[in-house]
């Protein structure tokens, strides 16, 4: 497996399922800036393990429900 693996996430979907939760609300809950949440939801930034776990904890789901390796995975 090489470094071209793409990580996708469903943070935006899960946030949408919580009534009225804004990106700022989520950012405050996990202790980062709103810009970080925007970048994660936009797929431009893969969070650290610690932040991924905090996000999963916030939504009450296992971390693998929130982050997945994409189908375009490369095996070398």
């Amino acid at each position, binding site marked *: 497996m090489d470094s071209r693996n793409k990580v996708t996430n469903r943070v*935006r979907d899960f*946030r*949408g399922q*919580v009534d*009225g*939760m*804004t*990106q*700022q*609300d989520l950012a405050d809950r996990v*202790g*980062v*800036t*709103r*810009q*970080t949440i925007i*970048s*994660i939801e936009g797929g431009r*930034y893969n*969070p*650290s393990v*610690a*932040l991924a776990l*905090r996000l999963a904890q916030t939504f009450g789901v296992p971390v693998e429900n929130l982050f997945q390796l994409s189908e375009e995975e490369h095996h070398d």
Partner: protein
Amino acid sequence: MTEETAGYRFPPVTALVASGLVAVGVLLFMFVHEGLLVVAGFGAFGPGVLRELGWLGGLDEFQRQAAHRAGYHAYLVGGLAAVLVVSALRGFGPDTGISTDWITLILVVLWITWLFSTLLTYWGARMTAKRVLLTFGSFWAVFVIAMLVSEQWEEVSPGQTALAILWAVLLVVPFFVLAWLAGRRPRMAGLLLLGVAAVVSVVLFPTWAGGSLDWSSVLLTATLLLVPLVGSGIALLREGARATFTCPRPDSPRSTTLSS
């Protein structure tokens, strides 16, 4: 999807202070004294330096990654530009009358900072300090042995010979002792390294500056000597301060406390 409703947030105090210093510095530079550009420098680089030293927080992991990426890009572009300028001026050199020594100095500062930072990331503070000190000590040892071998010993007394050998040993041994100490007592080794750097600055620097060397050469030598010493010292002090794990041996696998 939930739409954004968050309003405007006031910029953090650090950003306001830094921006204010840059603005004031530029104004002072333009209207009062050109040397006061240093005030703008404090604003532009101060917060980053304080954050890297661990004395200022305020950035989350994404912002830190962005800052590090931007810094690396600045290093590549700045380094390349400096090399091109030095090459061009040296290549078409004598007629321009522009000295490239100061640009070379900045290039060396860039390069050695990059190298040292990379080593710290790869090896950690203890191993980096240990290897840097062993390298320093080895170079000193070779230098001292070469000096001793090249001396005309038949012209000096046995007492002077013994003194020369003792002086040579005194110059070399501290590096190896500090290297040993860095792995076991990082805080003490860090303090001693900063002490050595201070002594070098206070004792040797004026001697060099008062000699035949020009200022750029003096600063170049000081950079090559002081950056590894001060860098290792600060890194070891920080390592000692946050060493919450209980395995002092640097060569063995250790349990670490990861901070987010």
